[in-house]
């Protein structure tokens, strides 16, 4: 049994069918590759074939998945039949820095935990609050408020068998000046951390130093590469920086950017990390190609270091 199992963070846009039984007929209607990206049966088979037995879903998937399958349990069973388990769901803890939103932020977090339990998952990677633009800079008390919300959600999650992992984006109101302050203000028994390797590097953390410092808190990863580490405040604090106007990509498949992912794997070995490594392909024009390239890089470069 390997120490690391691999999952994909779900970045597929709406997949309209569960399973296409008339695939050839559907293809011939307009003879394009749309047929290959239109049903969960195919998507999950791609994952399974490429050695990704886990999927982390996103909350924005629910509005399509739940009506299509009838329930989270049905989706989980369908995925399991194809060799894929739902490991968890991403969550955005909107306005958790705002004391006036405490009840609402905790309620939304608990509901998300309930949903994850229904999917059979055990991780909730959680963005601690919204974008910096329009919200930051946060005061010390607002950071503490954020920590209180995380602890509260974390307590409920722990009681229900789910680990919440703080997940910081490079453009969040929690940002370089208060990133570690938030982590250290949360209860390590209840609140863990999901390292998004590219996001924290773009924000300005040194990936290897950060993992070394916080390895005991790490519940899981979003593994992706970047060629844009240490962006200045003017970029990180700008309005809506995640999707660029000119198509510049923040994120690349492992090995196509500049991060020292081999160094990370040496540290994973040193600290004997065991658990799920989620791969994320946001910004990719071709998720299937990204998945295959990633599998090659894992098998030939990273897994030989630590498996």
């Amino acid at each position, binding site marked *: 049994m390997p120490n690391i199992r691999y999952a994909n963070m779900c970045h597929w846009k709406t997949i309209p069918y569960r399973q296409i039984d*008339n695939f050839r007929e559907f293809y011939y209607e*307009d003879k394009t590759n749309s047929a290959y990206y*239109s049903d969960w049966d195919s998507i999950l088979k791609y994952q399974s074939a490429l050695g990704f037995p886990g999927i982390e879903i996103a909350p924005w998937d629910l509005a399509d998945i739940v009506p*299509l399958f009838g329930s989270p349990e049905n989706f989980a069973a369908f995925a399991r039949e194809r060799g894929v388990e739902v490991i968890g769901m991403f969550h955005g803890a909107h306005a958790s820095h705002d004391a006036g939103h405490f009840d609402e932020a905790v309620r939304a977090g608990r509901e998300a935990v309930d949903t994850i339990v229904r999917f059979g998952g055990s991780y909730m990677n959680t963005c601690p609050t919204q974008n910096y633009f329009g919200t930051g800079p946060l005061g010390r008390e607002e950071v503490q408020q954020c920590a209180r919300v995380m602890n509260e959600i974390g307590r409920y999650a722990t009681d229900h068998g789910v680990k919440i992992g703080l997940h910081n984006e490079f453009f969040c109101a929690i940002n370089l000046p208060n990133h570690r302050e938030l982590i250290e203000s949360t209860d390590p028994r209840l609140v863990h951390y999901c390292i998004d390797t590219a996001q924290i590097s773009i924000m300005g953390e040194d990936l290897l130093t950060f993992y070394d410092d916080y390895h005991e808190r790490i519940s899981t990863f979003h593994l992706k590469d970047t060629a844009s580490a240490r962006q200045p405040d003017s970029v990180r604090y700008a309005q809506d920086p995640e999707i660029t106007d000119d198509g510049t990509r923040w994120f690349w498949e492992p090995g196509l950017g500049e991060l020292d992912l081999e160094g990370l794997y040496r540290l994973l070995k040193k600290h004997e990390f065991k658990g799920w490594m989620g791969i994320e392909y946001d910004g990719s024009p071709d998720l299937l*190609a990204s998945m295959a390239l990633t599998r090659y890089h894992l098998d030939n470069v990273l897994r030989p270091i630590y498996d």
Partner: protein
Amino acid sequence: MNRDDIAISLDLINRHYQEPNRNRYESRYFWEELYPLVAAAGFTSIELPYEPVWQFGGRSGVPLNRYCVNTKYGSAAGYLERLRAGGIARVSGVTFDPNLFMRNDSLDFYFGASGHFAGEALGHAADLGADYVAISPSPFYGRIAQYHPDLEAKRAGFAERTAALLSGLAAKAEEAGVTLVLRNEYWSLFGGSHLAGLLDALPASVMLDLDTANLFVAGIAPADFLARHQGRIGCVHLTDTSFVAGEGTWKTPNPEFPEARATQVFRDPGTGSVDLPGIAALLDEAGYRGPVTCSARQTRDPFRALLRIRALLSQIQN
């Protein structure tokens, strides 16, 4: 039918469904490259689907709501200036569908959010100088039923609240000089015989959309529809299909993608089974001079669709 000013709906860009290269659609550069290509295909008017979803989560590259337009261009006027630089003279209409807000069992949430964002769509349409806002009066029937299994018992109350919401919008539309138009969709709670009841409850200023593919799927002859609603057609959508709906397809949660048999319900205009030249002739006979918009929603290739539609219109126009 005014053949000189036929618009194209930007719903030909498949924003929501997965396929390679879809990510381009979320960046500003894609749309700014698109406008001159639309103009090169012979269209100088566009219709915009109003989609609140692009303003959530701090992303604003898709210019299909007021927030995104204001973020990237400062104002509707700034956006119009950019369109004109790309060869697009005007925005003829805006569409709005409330499916996004049917996501839980709270009808207060649905009507509150739908009313708010439909109002935003209307204000945006007015700012852009559009002729009409075409609104879907309900989410997909099956999507409502997912969260409200007792939908038939709630139908009267739902209809009453819908009529109140639309009447409020109609008053605002009149003030703004925009025509409010009801989309007539076969999957709607107000499809078929239920449409008449809703229309009766609305002010006379509320008009109807004649959508050719939707009529085809519902089995309604365009000539009959035109005769029945003479003088109340507010816009025409030239859409195409070869879809023959199975029993109950319209009641499923996502009827644009029929559960029982995968198919492209909406085909690129000119490639399906709707007699579009015949319908153009009918509109001429009826003396219709209002807005006409071509839509290639669900196309597999937006650029091929643009040229396919131009080829069709060349046929119709000659």
